[in-house]
C-alpha cells in the first residue's frame, strides 16, 4: 500500500498540479487548513507529503504518528495545555497495549495498526457532538456522560449489585467533597455515582486508576465513613477492623483466590471481604464468600469455632437471646450474639476499654451471664505489664518481662491487639475456647471453671507467670501451701491442687481488698498487709508454729517518727506502697521468695530458716544488711570487737543469728528490753547487766573487764540537752530497772560507750581484726571522747576519772580515802 502511495505521489508530483494531488489523497484543501491539520498529522507536512522527502533537519516521515503520545505531548506539555502531571506521568489508562482478550472494543474506538490502544483510541482532536458541554469535553470519541463511554468497553462493569458490581446511579449519600477535591466526578443527577466517581483514567497514582487507593480502605471509607473503625472524634465504632495487620489470623488462600485483596503491608481492608466488581458469589453485600450463619467469619477466624461447644455459644444456655438486629444465634450464627461486622451486636457494658465493655455486656447483673459477674476486687485492667510505674519495689509484675517471649495479647483502649497495649479481660481469657489445652468445650451449666479451664489462655499458674514470674520463687518454699498444707482451702473452698499455686492466696476475681487475698484474715490491726500474714501466722492458723509473740520487733510503726530511713518497702494501711508508710512484716519479708539471692532449690520448704533466707528481703549475714537498712548507726558494729564474727563467740551461733542476732532477737525474744537475746549478768543497772554478760569472768569478753568501772549512783545527773540521739554530745542515761531512756538518772556503761561504733570520730564498720583500744576509740561516744567528764566536773574531771577507772590511783589512797564533798 505504501509503495503504491509513493508511486502515485511520485508521478503526480511530477505532472499534475499540487491541488489535484490533494484531492486524490484527501489532504487539506487550502494552505491554512493544511497547516492546521498537519500540526498534528506530521506526515502531512508539505515536505513529506508533497515533496516526498525529509529536510535538512528531520528525516522523511512516512509513518502515522498523529495519535502517538509524543505528538499529543507537543501541546499538552504546558505550551498549550498542561497535562504533564495528569496524563504524561505514566499514570493513565493503558496505551501501547492491546485490550484484554475478552474485551470487545467498539468500532468507534480505533486501535492502531498493531491492534494496540493509543491516545486516539479514546480521543480525537476533531471532537464529537456531545451534550456535556465544552467545559467537560476532552475531545473524546463518544459522550462520556455518566461514564457511558467507559461502559462501552467495560461492559462487565455495567449495572449495579444485580450484576455483581458496586452500585452506580443516584445514591442517598452525598459524594464527599474530599473525594471530589481529589478528582472524583459526579453524574448529572444528585449524588450520582458513575465510574469516574471512583476511577480516573488520567493522573491516578493508585491501583486500577482509583481516585484514592483502596488498599488502605481509603477510597471505600470516603463514602462509607460509618464503616470506619474510628469515628471522627476517635471513638471506636463496632466495626470489623480494617487497615490492621492480622496477628492471629491468616487470610486463607481460598479467599485470595476468589479475589480478596489485602493492604500493601498485608492489612485487612474492605476488599478483603467485599468484591466490588464482577462479583458472582454474593450479590447482596458483594461479599467475597457467602455468609451463612457466620461462615464467612469462620473462614478466617477458624479457631473461633472452638466456641461452638462452650457456654459462650448461646445456643446452649441462652438460645432465645437476640442481638441488636433481633436475631437469635440459631438464625444468624454463633458469632452474631457478640459480633456483627458493621454494627454493635449487644449493648455495651461499663468499662474503661472496648473489650471490657464487650465482656461486661453479658457479665453484668440482670443479664445472661450474671452468674459469672466479676466482683469488685479483681485483677486490675488497663495496665501494662511492661511498665511497673511506682511499683518497682514490690515488683508485683516482673520488672524485666521478656517482651519477645511474652505470649499473652495486650490491647489498646480501642480493643485492637497492640504489643504496647494494656491488660484487659481477653489478655487472660480467650472467650472462644474453654480450655487452653483442648479444643473441646464444656456446656454443662453445673460445671464451674477452674484454673485449667474458665476460657483461660493458659492454665494457672502458668498464665500468672507470664507477668509475675518473679513471684514464682514461692514454689517449694514454706509458702507453697500445696507442699506444707495441701488440705487447706481458700475462700472459694478450693484446695491448693484446685486453686493452683497462686490461687491459694490470691483470687483474680473476687479476692479481698489488698492483694486480692483469697484467705480469711483474723487480725484486726487495721493494716491490710499485716493482716494477710497473721491470717495464717496465728495460733489457730496453718502457720501456728511460726507465730509472732511478745518481745518482737515492733510493726505498724513509722520510721519517720523514729528518725530512721530505709530502702525497704513501707505501706499505708490499705496495703499500698508509701514512702512515709508504716513498717510491716512485708517490710523485711518477701513472702514469695525464700532466699533473697534466689539460691534456694529443691524442696526447701523442709529446711529451717536462717538469717540468710527465711523470706527476708535482704540477707542479714555475713553483713547485717537487713537490720542495717534501718538501723544504720548500729550497723557500724560490723567487724568490730563487738561483732561476734570477729571476737570469740563462746558458743554463740553467729551464722544463725547474724551480727545483730547475737544480742537481739527480732522475734520472740526472751527479754523485752532491747529484745535482749542473752542472759543478764551482775550489775548496778539493767544496761550494765547486759554489758557484763560478756564482760565478766565467764563471758566472751572476760579479758575486757575494767578493774574499776563505777560511777556514784543516785547523783541524779540532769542530762537534758545531752539526751538527743544523733547529736554530737549524746550521752544517754537509762532507767536502772527497765533500761528505758531517762533525762535524769545514773550513768551506766552505754552512757559513755556506744557499743555499736568502735571509733566515735568515724561512722564506719570495724577493721575486722581484734585491736587494742585507747582513749580515742574503744567504743567511746563522741561526748566521752571530746569532753571526758569535763562538762560536769571541770578541771577536777581527770582526777575523778582516774579515781574511778584506774586501780593504781585509787588503791594508794584507799586506806585513807577522802571523798570529796560533792561525792557524798
Amino acid at each position, binding site marked *: 500500500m505504501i509503495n503504491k502511495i509513493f*508511486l502515485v505521489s*511520485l508521478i503526480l508530483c511530477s*505532472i499534475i498540479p499540487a491541488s489535484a494531488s490533494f484531492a486524490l489523497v484527501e489532504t487539506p484543501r487550502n494552505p491554512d487548513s493544511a497547516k492546521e491539520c498537519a500540526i498534528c498529522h506530521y506526515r502531512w507536512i508539505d515536505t513529506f507529503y508533497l515533496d516526498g*522527502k525529509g*529536510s535538512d*533537519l528531520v528525516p522523511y516521515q512516512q509513518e502515522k504518528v498523529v495519535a502517538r503520545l509524543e505528538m499529543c505531548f507537543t*501541546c499538552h506539555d504546558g*505550551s498549550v495545555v*498542561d497535562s*504533564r502531571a495528569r496524563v504524561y506521568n505514566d499514570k493513565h489508562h493503558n496505551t501501547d497495549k492491546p485490550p484484554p482478550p475478552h474485551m470487545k472494543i467498539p468500532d468507534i474506538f480505533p486501535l492502531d495498526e498493531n491492534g494496540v490502544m493509543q491516545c486516539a483510541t479514546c480521543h480525537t482532536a476533531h471532537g464529537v457532538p456531545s451534550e456535556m458541554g465544552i467545559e467537560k469535553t476532552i475531545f473524546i470519541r463518544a459522550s462520556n456522560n455518566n461514564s457511558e463511554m467507559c461502559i462501552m468497553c467495560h461492559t462487565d462493569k455495567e449495572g449495579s449489585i444485580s450484576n455483581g458490581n458496586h452500585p452506580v446511579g443516584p445514591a442517598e449519600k452525598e459524594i464527599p467533597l474530599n473525594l471530589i477535591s481529589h478528582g472524583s466526578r459526579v453524574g448529572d443527577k444528585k449524588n450520582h455515582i458513575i465510574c469516574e466517581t471512583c476511577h480516573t483514567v488520567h493522573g491516578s497514582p493508585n491501583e486500577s486508576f482509583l481516585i484514592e487507593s483502596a488498599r488502605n480502605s481509603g477510597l471505600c471509607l470516603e463514602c462509607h465513613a460509618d464503616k470506619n473503625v474510628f469515628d471522627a472524634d476517635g471513638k471506636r465504632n463496632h466495626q470489623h477492623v480494617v487497615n490492621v495487620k492480622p496477628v492471629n489470623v491468616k487470610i486463607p488462600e481460598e479467599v485470595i483466590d476468589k479475589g480478596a485483596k489485602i493492604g500493601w503491608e498485608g492489612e485487612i481492608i474492605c476488599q478483603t471481604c467485599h468484591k466490588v466488581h464482577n462479583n458472582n458469589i454474593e450479590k447482596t453485600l458483594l461479599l467475597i464468600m457467602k455468609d451463612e450463619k457466620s461462615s464467612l467469619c469462620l473462614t478466617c477466624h477458624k479457631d473461633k469455632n472452638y466456641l461452638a461447644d462452650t457456654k459462650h455459644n448461646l445456643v446452649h444456655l441462652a438460645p432465645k437471646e437476640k442481638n441488636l438486629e433481633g436475631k437469635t444465634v440459631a438464625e444468624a450464627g454463633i458469632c452474631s450474639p457478640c459480633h456483627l461486622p458493621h454494627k454493635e451486636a449487644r449493648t455495651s457494658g461499663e468499662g474503661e476499654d472496648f473489650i471490657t465493655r464487650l465482656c461486661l455486656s453479658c457479665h453484668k447483673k440482670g443479664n445472661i451471664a450474671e452468674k459469672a459477674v466479676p466482683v469488685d476486687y479483681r485483677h486490675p485492667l488497663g495496665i501494662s505489664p511492661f511498665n511497673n510505674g511506682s511499683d518497682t519495689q514490690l515488683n508485683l509484675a516482673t520488672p524485666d518481662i521478656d517482651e519477645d517471649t511474652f505470649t499473652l495479647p495486650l490491647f489498646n483502649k480501642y480493643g485492637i491487639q497492640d504489643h504496647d497495649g494494656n491488660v484487659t479481660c481477653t489478655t487472660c481469657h480467650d472467650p472462644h475456647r474453654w480450655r487452653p489445652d483442648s479444643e473441646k468445650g464444656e456446656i454443662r451449666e453445673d460445671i464451674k471453671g477452674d484454673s485449667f479451664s474458665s476460657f483461660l489462655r493458659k492454665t494457672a499458674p502458668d498464665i500468672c507467670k507470664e507477668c509475675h514470674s518473679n513471684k514464682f520463687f514461692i514454689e517449694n518454699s514454706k509458702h507453697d501451701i500445696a507442699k506444707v498444707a495441701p488440705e487447706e482451702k481458700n475462700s472459694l473452698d478450693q484446695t491448693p491442687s484446685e486453686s493452683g499455686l497462686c490461687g491459694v492466696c490470691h483470687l483474680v476475681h473476687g479476692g479481698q481488698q489488698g492483694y486480692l487475698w483469697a484467705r480469711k484474715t483474723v487480725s484486726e490491726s487495721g493494716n491490710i498487709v499485716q493482716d494477710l500474714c497473721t491470717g495464717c501466722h496465728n495460733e489457730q492458723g496453718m502457720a501456728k508454729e511460726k507465730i509472732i509473740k511478745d518481745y518482737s520487733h515492733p510493726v505498724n510503726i513509722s520510721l519517720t517518727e523514729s528518725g530512721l530511713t530505709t530502702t525497704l518497702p513501707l505501706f499505708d494501711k490499705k496495703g499500698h506502697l508509701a514512702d512515709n508508710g508504716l513498717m510491716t512484716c512485708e517490710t523485711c519479708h518477701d513472702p514469695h521468695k525464700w532466699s533473697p539471692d534466689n539460691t534456694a532449690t529443691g524442696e526447701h520448704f523442709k529446711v529451717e530458716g536462717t538469717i540468710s533466707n527465711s523470706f527476708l528481703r535482704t540477707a542479714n549475714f555475713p553483713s547485717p544488711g537487713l537490720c542495717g537498712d534501718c538501723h544504720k548507726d548500729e550497723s557500724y558494729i560490723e567487724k568490730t570487737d563487738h561483732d561476734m564474727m570477729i571476737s570469740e563467740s563462746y558458743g554463740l551461733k553467729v551464722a544463725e543469728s547474724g551480727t545483730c542476732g547475737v544480742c537481739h532477737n527480732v522475734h520472740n525474744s526472751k527479754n523485752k528490753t532491747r529484745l535482749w537475746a542473752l542472759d543478764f549478768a551482775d550489775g548496778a543497772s539493767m544496761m550494765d547487766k547486759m554489758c557484763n554478760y560478756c564482760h565478766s569472768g565467764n563471758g566472751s569478753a572476760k579479758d575486757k573487764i575494767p578493774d574499776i568501772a563505777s560511777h556514784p549512783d543516785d547523783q541524779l545527773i540532769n542530762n537534758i540537752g545531752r539526751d538527743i540521739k544523733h547529736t554530737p554530745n549524746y550521752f544517754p542515761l537509762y532507767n536502772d530497772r527497765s533500761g528505758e531512756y531517762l533525762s535524769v538518772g545514773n550513768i551506766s556503761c552505754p552512757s559513755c560507750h556506744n557499743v555499736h561504733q568502735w571509733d566515735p570520730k568515724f561512722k564506719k564498720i570495724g577493721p575486722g581484726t581484734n585491736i587494742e583500744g585507747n582513749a580515742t576509740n574503744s567504743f567511746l561516744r563522741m561526748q566521752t571522747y571530746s569532753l571526758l567528764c569535763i562538762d560536769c566536773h571541770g578541771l577536777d574531771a581527770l582526777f575523778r576519772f582516774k579515781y574511778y577507772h584506774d586501780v593504781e590511783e585509787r588503791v594508794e589512797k584507799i586506806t585513807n580515802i577522802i571523798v570529796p564533798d560533792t561525792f557524798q
Partner: protein
Amino acid sequence: MRRSHYHAMKMKKLLDRPGNISIIIFAVISILLYYSGHASGIDFTYIQHLYDITFDMNEPSDVAVSGSGQIYIVDGVNNRVVVSNKKGKVIFAFGEKGSGMGQMLYPLGIFVDSTGNVYLADSGNHRIQIFDPFGEFQSEIKIPSVKGVLADPTDITVDESRNRIYIVDNNNHHILVYDLDTLKLLDTYGTPGMGKRQFRYPFLISADKANYLYIVDVINTRVQVLNPDGKFVQYIGGWGVEKGEFFRPKGVAVDRSNRVFVSDGYMGVIQVFKTNGEFDSVISIADKSRIKKFNKPVGIFIDNNNRLYVVEMFANRVGVYDIFY
C-alpha cells in the same frame, strides 16, 4: 539509509517488473526534478557538552542562570525549583505542591534578575511568585482572568531599565506588562490571532540586550519579536520542517551577539537565527558535524560565558554546553 539509495532501490524494483516502462519514464523525470531543486547542506553552530543536571526531575520546563552562576531549573511536576551551582551540583531545591506562599502548582517558566531574585511562572496557581536567591518567598502577582478564561502565566522576563515585568498569559494569548515596584498592571501587548502582534498560545519569552521581547508563538509556529513598547518588529521562523522553520517551537534565547536560538520540541533541534530573522545554522556537537538531536528540548538559556543550557523534558535533565563561535 540515504534518500538517493532509497530511490535507486525503488527504481530497481520497478525495472524488474514487466510492463512498467511508462511508469519508469515518469519516475525518472520526477527524480531528476526532485534533486535539481533540492538545496543541500546546512551550517552548524557547534557546542561541546559539559555536564547534565538530573536530580530526579519530573518533566522540567525552563532554566535560568543568575549572575553568580547559580542554575535555577523549573521541576514542574515535582512542584519545585532545583538549584545547582555552576558546576552542576544541586545545592538546594525549594517549593512544594500547593497554593500557599512558596508553594506552587505545575510551574513552567523562570527568570532571574541581576540581583538574583527569582521570578517563577506558577501557572497552575495563575500567578507569578518572586523569591530571593535562596528560594524565600518575597511577593506574588496574581494574574487576572479574561472573560472567564483563567490566566495561564507560562513565562516572564524583567526589564530592569524600564522597571517592568513582562508576563506571558498562554490561555489569553497576550503579554502583560507589570510595574516592577508596584506590581501593578501597566499594559497588555497582543491579542489572539495569526497576524502581527497576535498570538496563538504564546509560551516562553526572552529578551535581548536592548530588551526587545522574543516570544515563542507555539501554534503560530514562530517567534514574534516586539520592542519594549509592544510594537511589532519581526517574525522569526515559520511553519514547516525545513531549516528556519518550526513544527513546535518551545524555547528561545538570545546570545551576546543578538543571535536567536530557538528549540523545537518535536523535531528535537535548536536552530540559530541572525538578528534580522534570517536562518543562520543549527546546533551540532563539535567534531560530529551532524545535527544535535535533543530529547524534547523546551526552555533554553545562554549565559554571559556563552554557555547554552537546554531543558530536555522527556529526558528529565538539563544539558549544559559551551558554544563555539
